[in-house]
């Protein structure tokens, strides 16, 4: 990605849409399948107009059956197509669990490379949109335990374009997570034309010297807001956007940590067994003596889901104020 490339301002929905569109234009093997991706143009209008432009063979309104959305895509991928399967909401992915964990992630491994599964599964996740129990969940921790899968959760339009393009071209199955609350609330400059961002590379979104914050998704933007606000108080907080959850970027986290010597991990997914637990364990194993303070995790609480009622949703979601306070506390430690 050339620094001088001309850019366009767009939000996250527009970035997903443009990336999918470009992929369909670029590669005849690419197709999109899922619930309501055709005539309706996806429930967030991401694929609006695609059916007319690319036809029903490439834009498939599937039966309402998640296991076969993924399973049929696995077969297509084995046979040389480049399917992009959509699960309408991440909360609906459970019926496809076997196809993702038992089949897609093991295709290359169990056949010792005889077959591969170049498949992308896109799904909107996350809360803060009054989605209640079944339109709000984060699913990354359920899947990041699984070797054979890659998991991406970019947060900005430019990262979405570069990483979704990389995912579509990747020779292995990729779970691509899009935080719903960022769909229209997050805008940014996106370089025009084709580019990819390497899978497995985190991005330092804000430089700082006193504390390292690792986050992704909607929380990443809140963390950036909090860290920026704290500059007025004279605090210097570095914010790392993880972007890729499997594989994860150890190098960027450790480099930052050796500078700041303090670590705060923020994610919306439940704390227990979450992504932060793995990062925390890695840091303790690799950089224990570089730490000047206990690692702190700010995560979703240990309840099954956020409620529909506003107070229940707000209690679940991590506020920007809470992030700012955790940052102050850690810097002061």
């Amino acid at each position: 990605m050339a620094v001088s490339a001309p850019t366009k301002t767009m939000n996250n929905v527009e970035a997903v849409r443009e990336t999918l569109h470009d992929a369909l234009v670029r590669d005849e093997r690419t197709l999109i399948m899922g619930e309501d991706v055709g005539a309706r143009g996806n429930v967030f209008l991401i694929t609006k107009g695609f059916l007319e432009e690319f036809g029903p063979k490439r834009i498939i309104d599937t039966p309402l059956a998640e296991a076969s959305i993924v399973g049929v895509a696995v077969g297509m991928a084995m046979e040389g197509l480049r399917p992009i399967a959509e699960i309408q909401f991440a909360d609906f992915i459970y019926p496809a669990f076997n196809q993702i964990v038992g089949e897609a992630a093991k295709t290359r491994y169990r056949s010792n490379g005889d077959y591969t599964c170049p498949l992308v599964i896109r799904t909107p996740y996350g809360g803060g949109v009054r989605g209640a129990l079944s339109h709000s969940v984060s699913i990354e921790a359920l899947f990041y335990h699984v070797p054979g899968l890659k998991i991406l959760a970019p947060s900005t339009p430019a990262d979405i374009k570069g990483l979704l393009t990389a995912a579509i071209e990747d020779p292995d199955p990729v779970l691509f997570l899009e935080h719903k609350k960022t769909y229209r609330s997050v805008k940014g400059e996106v370089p025009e034309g084709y580019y990819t961002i390497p899978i497995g590379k985190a991005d330092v979104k804000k430089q700082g010297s006193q504390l390292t914050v690792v986050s992704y998704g909607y929380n990443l933007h809140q963390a950036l807001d909090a860290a920026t606000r704290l500059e007025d108080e004279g605090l210097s907080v570095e914010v790392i956007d993880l972007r890729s959850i499997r594989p994860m970027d150890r190098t960027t986290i450790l480099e930052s940590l050796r500078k700041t010597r303090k670590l705060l991990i923020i994610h919306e997914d439940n704390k227990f067994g979450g992504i932060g637990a793995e990062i925390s364990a890695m840091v303790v194993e690799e950089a224990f003596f570089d730490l000047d303070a206990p690692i702190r995790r700010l995560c979703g609480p240990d309840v099954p889901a956020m409620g529909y009622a506003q107070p229940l949703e707000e209690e679940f979601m991590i506020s920007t104020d809470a992030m700012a306070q955790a940052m102050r506390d850690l810097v002061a430690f």
Partner: protein
Amino acid sequence: MAKAVEAAGAAKKPALDRRGLSDDQLRALLRNMLLQRQLDNRGFQLNRQGKIPFALGSEGHEAAQAGAAMAFERGKDVLVPYYRDLGLVLGIGYTPLEMLNSMFARATDRSGGRQFPNHYTNRDMGLLTISSIIAGHCPHAVGVAYAFTYRGETGRAVLCTTGDGATSEGEWHESVNFAAVHNLPIVFLVENNGFAISTPQSMQMRVKHVADRAPGYGIPGVVCNGLDPIETYATVKAALDRARTGGGPTLVEAMVYRYLSHSTDDDDRTYRDRTLVEEARRYDPVPTFERLLLDEGVIDEAAVAQLKADVLRDTNEATDTAELAPFPAAEDLYKNVYEGTHEPWL
């Protein structure tokens, strides 16, 4: 089930109705069936000798599998089998040595000794990799059929097989439905042996035949006598031809019997009356078909003896070769997780 087998046996035509098959093809069917039985037997022997941890057999399915495989067009069609499909894979070109390499879990096995025996893969033959998860492979078969249609490759079809128990799985239903909606070139062949390990068909479904469900998907459903290789061949061929020419999916149910336990780790005496098995043995498709070809003069006693000697020799040679082959190296465990190296932390 005994009744179904009896009915199937009674319905067997006395004279040879060859359905367009040449003498060579009829002898090839018999050879496949004899080889299946020999290899099944070898798997159980090796397990009882403590040489391999696990084996399973398809005794009783030989005719259905040899017949269905005869309808498969090599180089064009794709087979997405389940694990009790030795005869089908042999019929499309899988070799005894590949089977023995798999049984012994050697480095020479196509999966590098990773997979259970009977969990075939061979991309060159159009034989898809399968897991042990029942019906998990069915949507993959649909995806392959979709790819044929997508690329405008007429004249190709997918043969997707399961046992009867698999049809209780949601993924089987979703697969048949998806294929029907898109009128895909695929045949779902159900080898109904009446048991899912120990659970009888009556505890899996209310319908008498799996094929009775076909109208619910808007596709044809056909039942055939799976103890008769020629009838199964003709039924599967008609369905595959229909698929290859744009006619869409067919649900074919071949009525068979499972003479052995589910696997070497199962003991069917705990759930199946011996007299039922003995009764079903009267319709054993292997000696029955051998007798038919002898009676009809398609083959003579000497040629049958030669066939049996050939398959025993092939099995013995494959056994010796595979047993002498090296195990995969321990470090092979880490290969082929992804393309390139496998490292969760970068």
